[in-house]
């Protein structure tokens, strides 16, 4: 048995024991959705860090920096600064006014079912997009790191585990899985950073000299090299006519989107008070900031010590290698092989930068440890997404819309458990169906929808007296549709791939909208639509309920305990 597999099994065993004990304390709705509000601010800070630092950030960022240098680090910056929006504007009032879901806050002022429905749809959309991206990533990654698992096995395993955590252990088990993952991830990242620094005799100067020696090229549409830059210089990822705007649009999505991610927002219901919610953001910001600063060592370390060429194409399995040698440019045959063998990843996989760096500096045992951390990372995030989306279905759609609130606590928890199972199966099937598509855009889409649909509605509900039902519904729908349509027309979804490319663009045509991330257009549209729609309609009841909302939000009076 390989070390990776062993470490992975140890992690699974520990989390299942936690789930067993959590299950005994998960009976009521408050226990299932929000761990009985028994989590401390400090614990919740670790759990938020565990919920937030996904495979996309741990492996994706390291990979982006390893492939494109400085531009990759721009993501790291945005992912921390985003928490200021959460800290200053959202966390405490949300804890004071909501109960279990994001929709609780949005539907607060008019108890309107349409508002709740739209908010639930948005929650489900954001969570599912995010989950599928994580699962497809998990499939290719885990099958490479733990060779005993094929692509499909890895996805089924990840899906089954997340469903078990949520169904049996609810929010309590999810929280502890996230805390353990955050501890593992921080440990692994600190060790890896120290190894990189040790390699340069702890001289930051020497490290940056080495980075400046790594070169990358910028090519035009025809593939001609137009510029060469070193890895400390910006521009290797975001360049050309739309480069600067692309960078700014990404920034908009990151710093506004985080405050609208339902799986992050529901974490604030797990603590007893708004003050504890504040403490949780503080701990989360300390951990998340420290982590993203260390991506400097992970990403640039991989760029200097492993090298882009060695992170590129990875094919495992003797059969797969032989097959590719025989049919180097037959995409259809490659797809077929991917389905039957499951573990061919012929496209460059920059997710492997961090694990390969670990192997290079710390040997096979350390590589195995980082591989297990990667698996833990994915599991903790998908479990958080599963509980957020099953809560939205059970609490918002089923209980409050379909059954008009006439459901016993026991039945509500039962419905949430069934929803978690259905969402899990759905995510597994979608991830397997979409495995040959480039799904990286789904993470961007999740952030764009969160920033354009959820955040305007949340902020205006909490802070603007004149805001009302029409504003919420129109704003959310416009933000949602604008994000979806613009992403569908963007280079993230549209592109013409050479016939040999296996992981393909969804739409094989030239992109209509120039930016990968639509936030710079869709976020202002979401705000504008919400404000204009609210101003065009008069809603005295919604204005009246602002008194109650603002008193609750600012004092915690009558908050769910």
């Amino acid at each position, binding site marked *: 048995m390989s070390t990776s597999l062993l470490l992975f099994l140890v992690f699974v065993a520990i989390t299942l024991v936690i789930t067993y004990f959590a299950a005994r304390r998960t009976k009521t709705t408050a226990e299932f959705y929000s761990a009985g509000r028994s989590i401390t601010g400090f614990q919740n800070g670790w759990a938020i860090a565990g919920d937030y630092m996904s495979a996309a950030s741990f492996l994706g960022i390291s990979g982006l920096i390893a492939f494109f240098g400085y531009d990759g680090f721009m993501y790291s910056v945005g992912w921390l600064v985003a928490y200021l929006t959460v800290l200053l504007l959202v966390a405490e009032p949300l804890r004071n006014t909501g109960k279990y879901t994001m929709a609780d806050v949005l539907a607060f002022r008019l108890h309107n079912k349409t508002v709740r429905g739209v908010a639930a749809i948005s929650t489900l959309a954001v969570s599912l997009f995010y989950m599928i991206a994580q699962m497809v990533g998990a499939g290719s990654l885990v099958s490479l790191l733990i060779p005993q698992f094929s692509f499909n096995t890895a996805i089924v395993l990840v899906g089954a585990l997340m469903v078990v955590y949520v169904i049996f252990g609810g929010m309590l088990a999810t929280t502890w899985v996230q805390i353990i993952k955050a501890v593992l991830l921080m440990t692994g990242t600190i060790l890896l950073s120290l190894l990189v620094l040790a390699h340069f005799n702890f001289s930051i100067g020497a490290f940056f000299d080495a980075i400046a020696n790594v070169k990358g090229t910028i090519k035009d549409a025809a593939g001609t090299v137009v510029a060469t830059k070193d890895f400390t210089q910006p521009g290797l990822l975001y360049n050309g006519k739309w480069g600067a705007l692309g960078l700014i649009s990404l920034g908009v999505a990151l710093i506004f989107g985080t405050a609208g991610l339902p799986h992050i927002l529901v974490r604030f219901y797990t603590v007893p008070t708004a003050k504890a919610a504040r403490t949780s953001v503080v701990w989360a910001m300390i951990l998340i900031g420290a982590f993203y600063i260390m991506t400097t060592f992970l990403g640039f370390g991989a760029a200097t010590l492993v090298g882009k060429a060695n992170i590129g194409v990875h094919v495992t399995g003797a059969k797969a290698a032989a097959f590719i040698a025989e049919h180097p440019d037959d995409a259809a045959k490659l797809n077929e092989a991917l389905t039957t063998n499951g573990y061919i990843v012929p496209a460059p996989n920059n997710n492997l930068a961090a694990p390969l760096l670990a192997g290079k500096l710390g040997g096979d045992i350390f590589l195995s440890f980082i591989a297990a951390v990667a698996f833990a990372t994915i599991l903790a995030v998908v479990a958080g997404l599963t509980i957020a989306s099953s809560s939205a279905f059970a609490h918002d759609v089923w209980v409050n819309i379909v059954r008009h609130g006439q459901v016993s606590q026991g039945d509500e928890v039962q419905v949430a458990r069934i929803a978690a199972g259905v969402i899990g199966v759905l995510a597994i099937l979608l991830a397997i169906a979409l495995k040959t598509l480039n799904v990286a855009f789904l993470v961007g889409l999740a952030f764009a929808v969160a920033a354009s649909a959820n955040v305007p509605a949340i902020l205006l509900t909490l802070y603007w007296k004149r805001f009302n039902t029409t504003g919420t519904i129109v704003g959310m729908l416009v933000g949602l549709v604008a994000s979806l349509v613009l992403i569908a027309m963007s280079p993230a979804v549209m592109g013409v791939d050479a016939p040999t490319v296996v992981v393909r663009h969804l739409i094989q045509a030239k992109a209509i909208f120039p930016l990968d991330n639509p936030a710079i257009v869709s976020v202002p549209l979401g705000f504008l639509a919400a404000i204009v729609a609210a101003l065009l309609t008069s809603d005295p009841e919604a204005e009246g309920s602002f008194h109650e909302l603002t008193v*609750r939000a600012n004092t915690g009076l009558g908050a769910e305990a």
Partner: protein
Amino acid sequence: MATNISTPAPPQGSEPNWTAIERSADFKALVSAKMRFIIPATIVFVCYYFALPILVGYAPDLMQHKVIGSINLAYLFALSEFAMAWIVMGLYVRRARDFDVQEKHVLDEVKSGALR
């Protein structure tokens, strides 16, 4: 349970008088103290944050100017964003202790029955 649409409106008297609390001097002072911090802090952090992608995107030559050895302005500016985030966080936490005291005043007043 305001969020549960099935709950019938509680009888007058058991529910706090939200309007009276909102109009009380202590509550107004709490909200305006919060806004006096939160609004400028938000403007500062958003402007400081976007200065980075704007400068990196539109003035790459300035940003790739090497400052210490091979470390350039772009990287130092990016690092300063982390410092900025933690400083704004620290300032907020410090100010929020005052908000907590003011919040307690409001809640004491509600408990004493002065805001019926």
